[in-house]
Each structure stands twice: as structure tokens, then as C-alpha cells.
């Protein structure tokens, strides 16, 4: 816990004694854990800056859509203009269903289902808000928090087994180390999918359902049509550009296998809230991505474990094995030249300073390379 947080926690108990603010019902330390879900986009505390979402210092008392330097959706700015001010009650409502309180706002987070989580994270945020320590109690959140089931210790810790065989069967391998993995354990972690369909869960989803989930969960980074916002990945388009000066590598134009799409969304998306989508939702999003890439043209197309393996991506044939060693400069394998290797003195043909995209060079310009 930061010093700030400790001090704020002390302030809370005093205020709680006097006025009993609602967020005092929440536990800021538990809230800090809940906040991990928010951290992919939001910063709070010392040195917090705007990232994918605005910073959350002094969010209490802040009019919605007003952090300097953050590009809000017009919907969030409109909500602020309409009088939305963040406090324990409005935050509780927003965090429960972000798209309900402020429709079409760009936060790609579906909300915190548990009242307890909301109360805790609000208490955590309050510890970084000056206004929270003086503000009047917000009964809404209080009522909610009070309705919440009593806090249970989360993630009951299995005691570290000294032998590595907690109640399990010892390994019968050459060194007798480790224990036999239980089938439920293998199932829990083994989520990978291969091009031949191995690993696909049973399920289904269609293009229209996929669009709905995509707009809700993915579009804030990838754009409504997979066009990619800022520098987030472009997912659709780019067909026949791979040999161009500026190739556009998307699922439709570049990726060789559809199974990769399913596997990756299921394991890592949405960014910052991995493993939160149902298997059917992943089928639906994958179907929608096929549709956006013109690989299927029927918006009622349904993708399932049954028809998955027969769906091919157009660029599959264009991947070749590593044949670097056949390149002429390697094949030559010659003793390198040591003197008079060029007829004329070398001349400079390009200087990095012309482009001037080196960090800390005082410019915000972007370069043309990328790292992956």
C-alpha cells in the first residue's frame, strides 16, 4: 500500500466516523486488486497519465469527459455537459454497466458484476481523490455495498507443498520429481487450438452476434470495422497488398490459419481482460472477422466446431519454410574482402537525423518502422 493510500485510509476512518461515506464500506486494499482489471487502460496515483483511458486521480468531483489532453468520445463529453459528475454513486452505476450510464462511450469494459468489487474499487479510487475525503456520503453505493455478501477471502491459497506432491501421485520419472497432473488441471490450462481443429471447444456463434460483441468489446481499439485505432492492430482489409510498398497485414490478407484467430482471442483478448469471453462469443467474433474480411458474405453465417476446420484463409499458401541459407550472401561463404573493396570512396546516402524520430529529440513525429 502506498503512503498516500495509507494516509487516505486513515482519513477514511475519521470521515466514516463522522459522516459514514459509502465508499468507506469498500476496502481500498481489495479495490487495488480489482483495479488490475482497469490497469490496462487507466492509471491512478503518483505519475498517473492518460493512457488508453484517462487518468483517475481526483476522479471524485470531476465532471465526466473533462481530463485535459485525453481524447474522449463525444458521448462522454456530452454526458459531462449534461451534468454527469463522478462520485461514489455515479461511479457505481457506471462500473456496473458502462454502456448503460453513458451509451456508446468508448470504454471497452463490460463492467463489474459484483457490487462488492465495485464498492472496493471505488474505495480504492477514493483514496486518490482529494474530494472524496470531504464529499458527502453517497447513499446509492452504500446501499449496494451493504447488499453485497460479506467479503470472502479470495483465491484461497494452497499451501506450498514441500515435496511438490500435494495430495497427488508422485512422478514415476527418472528423478521422481513433480506430481501427476489431474485431468481437471490439464483441461483448465490446455486451451490451445491448432489448424487441424485440435483443441477447439464445442460451441457456435454467428456474424450478427459477433458484431454485437465486437462493437462492445473490441472496437474501442480495433475500430468498428477492424480498421484499427491509433496503433492498435488493423484486423480487416489489405487484400493483395503484401507485395506493395506498404503492405497491410490483416487476418484476411496475411494470417494463414483461422485457428490462430480463435486461439488468440480466447487466450488474450480483450486486451486487459483476457479469458473473459465465452467460447460461443469467441466463435461469434471469429465469424464476424471472417465477414469483415469478405471471406464469408452471409451475415447469418454461423461458425462452430463442426465447420471450423474447413474454413480456409486466403494467404495460407504464401508461407514458406526458412530458406535464409539459400540467399546468395550466405551461399557465397567467401573470405570477406579486406582492402579496396569498393572502386570509389563511400558516400552517405541517408541520414537518420533527416527523419528525426529518435525519442527525446524534441519532436513527436512517428517513424515508419514497426517492431512486430
Amino acid at each position, binding site marked *: 500500500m502506498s503512503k498516500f493510500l495509507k494516509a487516505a485510509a486513515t482519513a477514511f476512518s475519521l470521515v466514516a466516523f463522522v459522516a459514514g461515506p459509502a465508499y468507506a464500506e469498500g476496502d481500498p486494499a481489495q479495490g487495488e486488486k480489482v483495479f488490475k482489471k482497469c490497469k490496462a487502460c487507466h492509471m491512478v496515483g503518483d505519475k498517473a497519465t492518460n493512457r488508453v483511458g484517462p487518468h483517475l486521480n481526483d476522479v471524485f468531483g470531476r465532471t465526466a469527459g473533462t481530463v485535459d489532453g485525453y481524447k474522449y468520445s463525444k458521448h462522454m463529453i456530452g454526458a459531462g455537459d449534461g451534468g454527469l459528475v463522478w462520485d461514489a454513486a455515479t461511479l457505481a452505476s457506471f462500473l456496473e454497466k458502462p454502456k448503460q450510464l453513458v451509451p456508446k462511450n468508448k470504454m471497452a469494459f463490460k463492467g463489474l458484476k459484483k457490487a462488492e468489487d465495485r464498492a472496493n474499487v471505488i474505495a480504492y479510487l477514493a483514496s486518490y481523490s482529494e474530494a472524496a475525503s470531504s464529499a458527502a456520503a453517497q447513499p446509492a453505493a452504500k446501499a449496494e455495498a451493504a447488499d453485497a455478501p460479506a467479503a470472502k477471502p479470495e483465491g484461497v491459497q494452497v499451501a506450498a507443498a514441500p515435496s511438490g506432491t500435494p495430495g497427488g501421485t508422485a512422478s514415476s520419472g527418472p528423478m521422481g520429481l513433480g506430481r501427476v497432473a489431474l485431468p481437471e488441471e*490439464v483441461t483448465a490450462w490446455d*486451451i490451445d487450438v491448432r489448424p487441424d481443429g485440435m483443441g477447439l471447444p464445442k460451441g457456435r456463434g454467428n456474424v450478427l452476434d459477433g458484431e454485437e460483441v465486437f462493437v462492445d468489446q473490441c472496437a474501442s481499439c480495433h475500430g468498428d470495422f477492424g480498421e484499427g485505432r491509433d496503433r492498435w492492430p488493423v484486423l480487416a482489409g489489405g487484400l493483395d497488398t503484401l507485395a506493395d510498398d506498404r503492405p497491410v497485414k490483416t487476418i484476411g490478407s496475411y494470417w494463414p490459419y483461422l485457428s490462430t484467430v480463435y486461439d488468440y482471442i480466447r487466450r488474450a483478448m480483450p486486451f486487459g481482460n483476457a479469458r473473459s469471453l465465452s467460447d460461443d462469443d469467441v466463435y461469434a467474433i471469429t465469424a464476424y472477422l471472417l465477414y469483415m474480411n469478405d471471406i464469408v458474405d452471409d451475415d447469418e453465417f454461423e461458425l462452430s466446431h463442426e465447420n471450423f476446420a474447413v474454413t480456409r484463409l486466403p494467404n495460407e499458401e504464401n508461407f514458406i519454410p526458412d530458406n535464409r541459407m539459400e540467399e546468395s550472401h550466405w551461399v557465397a561463404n567467401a573470405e570477406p574482402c579486406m582492402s579496396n573493396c569498393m572502386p570509389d570512396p563511400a558516400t552517405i*546516402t541517408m541520414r537518420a537525423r533527416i527523419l528525426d524520430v529518435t*525519442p527525446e529529440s524534441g519532436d513527436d513525429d512517428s517513424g515508419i518502422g514497426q517492431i512486430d
Partner: protein
Amino acid sequence: MSKKSPTDRATTRRGFLGGGLAAAGGLAVAAGAARAAQPDPLITEIQDWNRYLGDGVDAAPYGVPSEFEAGVVRRNVPWLTADATASVNFTPLHELDGIITPNGLCFERHHGGVAILDPAQYRLMVHGLVDTPLVFTMEDLMRFPRENHAYFLECAANSGMEWRGSQLNGCQFTHGMVHNVIYSGVRLRHLLEEAGVKTNGKWLLAEGADASAMTRSIPLEKALDDCLVAFKMNGEALRPEQGYPVRLVVPGWEGNMWVKWLRRLEIGDQPWHHREETSKYTDLLGDGKARRFTWTMDVKSVITSPSPQKPITHGKGRTVISGLAWSGHGTIKRVDVSLDGGRNWQTARIDGPSLSKSLHRFYYDFDWDGSELLIQSRAMDENGMVQPTKDELRAARGFNSIYHNNSIQTWYVQSNGVTENVEVS
């Protein structure tokens, strides 16, 4: 005497390019003064540090670098990626010497931020085409026979921003996605043998426990050869950003395969073709085809000093050119240095341990006459493979390959010592 604040020191490239001139001039004057009759007050006057007591042994239970080294830090290039949690920063190669990278300066590449994992809650699973699927705890891992190896880890995209042309002024940015540490760990082979790999097992899937659940397919032959499951770097626990408590070490192969926060090893009969081995880390060629499974990091070198962030400030005379060379195929046999843009070459001196798949340090000591230089280094590995020129790589692969740019780098050293990233012909 007032203490010199570390923040006074120019730490930015612009500071070097602009201030470098003044510094070079200033030092030349100082050097002149040292030869003059005026005695140096740093010698004739008693200094604070010579009179007053310094910190005691309780001041820094975990030591940190001198305050005068505050500029020696990892830096990132914000425009490269959408968000810092799925991005990269760069090792300050220009400030380092020897072959070992200090743990806190090893470049970072995450795809879902740094996972925080308590070793008491750490589990590693081996399953798939094995006789017995197993779960190991941290303590189990420590009971396998341990080994120590120095290996470089290079991101396949190191120098990737330079394919189209000179872009970034500093070897930290052009070449800083590499580091070299001594790993302590156990052979991956032992863990796989403990579970018993079935005869149809040909591939290994390694998976991380972070929010990206990073996965890569590795051929079983490599897994059984020299891969390590490592828990220490340079003698201490892995840093969180390097995969604490456990990472995979895949010597000589691209860094993305060195899965951090390693939690799962699955044996299969074919590769998985996951995101980081299809949509990423595949090398697009000029004709639109793309190479996949380009694992090995080919022979490469770079001069780290002088370089754009490390200009020559002492004027003409005795000068040390220093740099790094490495190859994923083994040791470095030779490094040549050119002062004239590749027309003539001299063989540099490799100093320090020459270890397979580890960084090598080279030096070229000479008397600089103060004329403009176009300096290059060219490494040759134990197989006789010679680092290619940028033009050779472009001729073979086009401009959009991103990965595996191991071409020769040129620095333009001006007569005032200011150094720039350039291309020559």
C-alpha cells in the same frame, strides 16, 4: 566544491548532438589547461568526499548505481506501439562494456504487461504426448541438476525499424533489443524426460502465465538440445520483467520464443501456428511470400562507442572503438572494423570470454587524425558466416521483412566527434 548534479549531464541525443560540440570544445580546453601551469584544484584542494563521511553499510540493502550514472537507463520509442503494456524498451548498449548486461538494463518486451507471480503459487505443467502429465512446483524445479550458461537474447525485430533506411539516432534504439546474462536453470530435457515424451511427440508448445498467455511452438529437437528452464540471471532471481520466477531459455533463437512466466509445456505431433509465429515473427519477402519459423538469430555486430549517443569528446589522438558481436550459430571467430564506409577493413581485437551464443566484446584501438569517419563492424561466426550489408539483405528480402535485420551498421563520425546513423553506398 559543489557536487555536480547528474541531471546536468546531457542524457538525450539532442543533448549529445548539440551539446556534444560544446563538450568536445570544453574538454579540449580542459586538456590544454592540464598541460598548462595552473594546478588543478581537484588535486590541490581537499574535496568534500575526502573529508566527510559517506553512507554506512545500512544505507542501501540492495545497491543501486552511482547518481552520476542516472542517464544509463532503458528507453522506449513511444511511436512504435499503441500502449506501453504491449511494447518494448531498449538496452543502453552505448553505455556498457564487457559482455554481461546488468539485470536492470536488460531490454523489456511484454505483450500484456509484467505478470506478478508469487513463486509459492508457481506451477509448471508438462502434458500432451507424454507418458505421465506432471505438475512441478518451484521447489521441484530446484531439485533437478542445475547449469549455468551465458546467452544473448535478441528480439527478432532488433534493428527492424532500420530496414527501409536510417531512422533512429542511437545504437540503443537501432540495436538495443539484445541483452546477455548468465542463466542458472535446469535443462528442459530433464523435465520432459520426467514426464516421458511419446515417440510421436515432435513439437513443444511453451506457454506463459501472463495476460497475453504467450505461446510458441518449438521443435522437439531444439527442446531436447540446449534449452533451459531458468530461474536466475546473473546470479539473482529473474527480474519480474524477465519472467520471474521462471522463463524458458532458447539459446541462439529469437527472443519471443524465450517464454516468460513459463507455466505450461505441451508435447504435440505438429506445430500450433499461433499468433506470434504466423501474424508476427514471420518475414514478409518482396514477392509477398513470407518465411515462417525463422528461429535462428544470424551473425551480427554493432559498434557501441562511438555511436550517436556516445560521440567522441576527446578530440583527435588515441581512440578506442568498441562494440558487440554475436551469432545464434555459435561463437564469433572474427570482427573487422572499417573507418571508411566498408572500403578497407582492419581486424579488431576480441576481448573477454568467447562463449557460444553469447555476446562478444571487440575493440579497435587507433590514432584518430580528426578526419571524418564512416565506421562499420563486420562479424564472422565460427561457421564462417559473414554479416551481410544492408543492400545484400534488401536484395534478398525486400523492404518489409521487419525481422532478422543483421546487416552492417554505419556510423558517421564528424571531425568534431558528433556521430550519426547513416547509410552509405
